[in-house]
């Protein structure tokens, strides 16, 4: 097992280097000169001298490799440079926004797990009946519906029409409900489908037949089926956590939730490159780390997976 972990750790090293490189060259994709942008957003007329000075200040006059190594060493120390707009360190802006995003993501995760399990179990118990069909219908619509539209409809119904919940912001504890429900919807569809299909398949296994022959209670049998169907969902859930955190972008913008997704979109409109770059790097690293953790967990649960590395 230790060998496997070491092997996996070594294999993510080149990926991390590749990702950091990719995040860095993204800024060079920008059609405008970052120095000029940095001046313009502060309403300084970009004269030749001012641009040259700014280029020096931002270190743009150095070679590509030199800039990359400085950027990556600074990033490793938590220094992502300063925002062009507020001039505050990017890390401080991130520190303010990250808790809000995590809060939203974990409330969503809770809703996803709770609702998916109940719906999947209902589908399995009443397989083929009207309950099963209705839930599967909702799941199908849930996969095709645009998340931002659901968000708007929910906002209109619960905040405008019924006036039960706040429309946006993060002032009261109940503010999290609408964005979290919007965010969970697409995932619930995926998990109900996954868990239901696994459970329905498990129902046909011999151990269920044996349990029935032994005269076990339906409830007890269902518990066995449930336990044996969880594995693929757990693996998928591991990858859903970073996806949820990255997926908050749209929801945060609809509900004015002060998290990193909103920070990033605002930065895009303001051409605030250091923030975008830091966001991209953080998210990508998050994905790699979770991918690694999921692989380790699945291989602990099922030794057959270790060979495939």
């Amino acid at each position, binding site marked *: 097992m230790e060998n496997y972990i070491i092997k996996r750790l070594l294999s993510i090293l080149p990926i991390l280097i*590749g990702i950091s490189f990719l995040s860095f060259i993204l800024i060079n994709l920008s059609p405008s000169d970052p120095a000029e942008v940095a001046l313009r957003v502060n309403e300084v007329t970009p004269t030749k001298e001012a641009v040259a000075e700014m280029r020096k200040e931002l270190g743009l006059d150095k070679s590509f490799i030199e800039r990359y190594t400085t950027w990556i060493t600074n990033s490793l120390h938590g220094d992502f440079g300063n925002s062009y707009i507020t001039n505050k360190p990017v890390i401080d802006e991130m520190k303010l926004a990250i808790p809000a995003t995590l809060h939203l993501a974990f409330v969503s995760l809770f809703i996803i797990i709770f609702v998916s399990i109940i719906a999947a179990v209902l589908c399995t118990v009443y397989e083929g009946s009207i309950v099963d069909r209705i839930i599967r219908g909702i799941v199908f619509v849930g996969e095709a519906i645009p998340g931002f539209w659901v968000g708007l409809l929910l906002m209109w119904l619960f905040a405008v029409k019924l006036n039960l919940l706040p429309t946006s912001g993060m002032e009261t504890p109940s503010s999290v409900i609408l964005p979290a429900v919007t965010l969970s919807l697409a995932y619930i569809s995926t998990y109900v489908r996954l868990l239901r299909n696994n459970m329905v398949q498990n129902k046909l296994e011999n151990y269920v037949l044996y349990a029935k022959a032994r005269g076990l209670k339906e409830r007890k049998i269902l518990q066995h089926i449930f336990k044996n169907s969880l594995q693929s969902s757990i693996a998928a859930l591991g990858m859903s956590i970073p996806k949820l955190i990255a997926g908050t972008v749209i929801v945060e913008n609809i509900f004015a939730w002060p998290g990193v997704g909103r920070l990033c979109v605002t930065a895009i409109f303001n051409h605030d490159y250091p923030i975008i770059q830091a966001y991209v790097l953080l998210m990508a690293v998050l994905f790699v780390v979770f991918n690694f953790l999921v692989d380790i967990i699945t291989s602990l649960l099922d030794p057959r997976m270790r060979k495939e590395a």
Partner: protein
Amino acid sequence: MGVINRLKNDRLAMVCLGFLFLVLLAGVFAPVIAPHSPIEMNVKEKFAGISMTYPLGTDQLGRCILSRLLYGIRITVFLSLLTMAMTILIGTLLGILAGLLRGKVDEVIMRICDVFLSFPSEVMILAIVGMMGPGLFNVVLANIIAKWAWYTRMVRTIVLKYTDKNYVRFAKVSGCSTGHIVKTHIIPGAAGEISVLATLDTGSVILIISALSFLGLGVQAPTAEWGMMLNEAKNVMIMYPYQMLAPGIAILLVVAAFNFLGDSLQDAFNTKRVNKMR
């Protein structure tokens, strides 16, 4: 052809196919069908209800909603299809290259793929649009960059699977050229899996393009696009909530049709699963 017959027997799949065909036709002939110009304003008639002149009413600037929906097909649906076509082209070319040449070429292509695959596509798209600035071209480009690696890897796996098959080995031994083998044996084999994934992905690309336009990162006003229409509807939500209905339903129906078609294609191509389920 078993696949086509199976698909023909799937009534809902045929309904979806017919619906999508109609949507595409409506997009192509939008200038002929649409009762008004999508950007023609009529301030006197803003927020008009359903009438003979405006079959779906008008929006906050008095523009015909039906006309905007029809012209929106050209952007939302056509650009998604273009994105998929480009992605499949790049993925197939690189996948075949990697799978056939093996060795160093394969190694390099697959390592680049690894980096792109470990980069979450949502973040990648946001990063590219963020750096290159909002705009339709950048959105399409971002989608292609975020997706090509998935197709490259899939096609490579398929190529490897088929080059091991006896009939491909036989074709090689009997002196068929590599080009001939790719054309007659590998591409038809790969077409099934590609079409399943591509159909399902088209739905998700439509969702991404409309979401970005909704955020203001894609289409710029006054172009008619479904996500953009929802963005405009959002601002008048309190007084005129019905403005949100038409574009939302349009996206939902088209994406649902693509998803359903994808599922049906999967069943049609995968005989084993069909037999097991019955």
